[in-house]
């Protein structure tokens, strides 16, 4: 635990003494809950169509595969015409592309960013590193299987996958969303204990609350 995150007593300007617990003061403690869709299937279908045609990617390059996301924005591939956009903040994005090897240090930030996204949210694993560790399979500080830690909707294989593969991955994801199967956020809420246990097993210096709203 970092020193600034420990409990401390503070004296207010009027002499009042109170205790500050940064983990409780700065974060909400509520854990995720399962969110059901609309009651009318036709509304939910419309929403799913809209979700699939407006995919906002969190611009967080986690591994070497992130390189492949840049050409997608440029003239040759131009992902914008498929309704894909990049967003700089997890609050506004709904697709998290985990682009390759994930060191334990980065995993901590990934978990945090993922939990800050609003549901329904999707995770795409890019490259063999996210599937089986890839060429880092015996490394001491990278994780081997992404779906032990986050609910993955789709993997794009390759080392590294070409931009075309990424684009077709996005198209496949769209199909999943339209069929109403893109419910990773609910799976995360249902199996919350299991995911947390896995995360805490590898992240040794766990100095954040259990759920980072």
């Amino acid at each position, binding site marked *: 635990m970092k020193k600034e995150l420990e409990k401390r007593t503070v004296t207010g300007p009027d002499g009042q003494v109170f205790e500050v617990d940064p983990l409780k003061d700065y974060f909400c403690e509520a854990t995720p809950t399962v969110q059901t869709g609309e009651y009318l299937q036709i509304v939910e279908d419309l*929403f799913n169509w809209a979700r699939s045609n407006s995919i906002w990617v969190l611009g967080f390059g986690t591994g070497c595969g992130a390189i492949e996301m840049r050409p997608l924005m440029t003239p040759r591939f131009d992902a914008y015409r498929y309704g894909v956009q990049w967003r700089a903040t997890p609050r506004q994005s*709904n697709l998290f592309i985990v682009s390759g090897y994930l060191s334990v240090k980065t995993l901590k930030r990934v978990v945090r960013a993922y939990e800050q996204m609003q549901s329904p949210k999707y995770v795409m694993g890019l490259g063999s590193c996210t599937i089986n560790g890839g060429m880092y399979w015996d490394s001491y500080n990278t994780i081997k299987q992404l779906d032990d830690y986050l609910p993955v909707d789709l993997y794009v294989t390759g080392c590294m996958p070409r931009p075309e593969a990424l684009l077709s991955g996005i198209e496949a994801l769209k199909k999943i969303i339209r069929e109403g199967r893109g419910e990773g956020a609910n799976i995360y809420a249902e199996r919350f204990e299991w995911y947390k246990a896995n995360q805490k097993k590898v992240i040794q210096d766990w100095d954040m609350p259990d759920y980072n709203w």
Partner: protein
Amino acid sequence: MDFEWIKIPYALLSLFIVLNYGLLMTALVTKIGARAGRRYGIPIYQNYIDILKNMALRTSLTHGVMFYLGPVFRLSGGVGLLLFMPLIFGSEMFSNFSFAGDLMLVLYFIFFGMLGMALGAGESGSPHAAIGVSRGLSQVTTSELPLALAVFAVALQYQTLSITDIVAAQQHGWTSWTLFTNPLAVIAAMFSFLGSMMRPPFDIVLAPQEIPIGPPTEYHSSYLAAMQTNRMIFAVAKVVVYMNLFFGGASNWFELFIKVFLIYLFSAFVGVCFPRFRVEQSVRWFLVWAVPPGILAILLV
């Protein structure tokens, strides 16, 4: 001025038309920008889907009352701006709630949403939002200065504070537009226009590549949808102000669409041609290049 109830549905109708026009026009301009970069660009209906998607998000969280009110203030800034100025000159239906001194109110509304947004973003507690707010307010303050000067010059020139009267004075053929009768004021105002449209070179406040996109960093789901809606309305409403003051107003919807599109395109055109200014550079740019024509315009009137 007498008030008639029938004006309310008319105002709502004009709001609806402007919203749809704004959604399509901004998408078209984005597409033109993409074409300048040799991309194909977003589909023309993308804005509708984005807003629908944002409203379809199942969870949303708040940081407090002001966080709620931020987008509300922003939206009322845009809608207010639109409702208190005449859209179509000489039309009973679409003159909205304009009245004798509406020019001052319009100037105020342009700034109003910005301030509400600053408060809301401040309460979100994100350091990126705070940085965005301080950058945004310093840039907007300096870019409003030439606009205010230009508006005063125009008000002096026509001896009125009513937008309807100003438009009426420009109805003797295109040579009677402010653009030709008072070019200095228009130059100052157009410089200021560049600053407020959030396109390069002045888009550092909201640019997605910057420290997480400035004031709206924490906004999401329906908050964001409200802000997107406002953006469409505000963009058109603001251009209509310019059209009314400097480009002879519009006497039918078609003329309005064309003029608004062309004026808006001006900022997009400059945007694709120039790289980005840092805030202190843009502040200096406004003070050096945009304020002097404004002062000259007032002196010469």
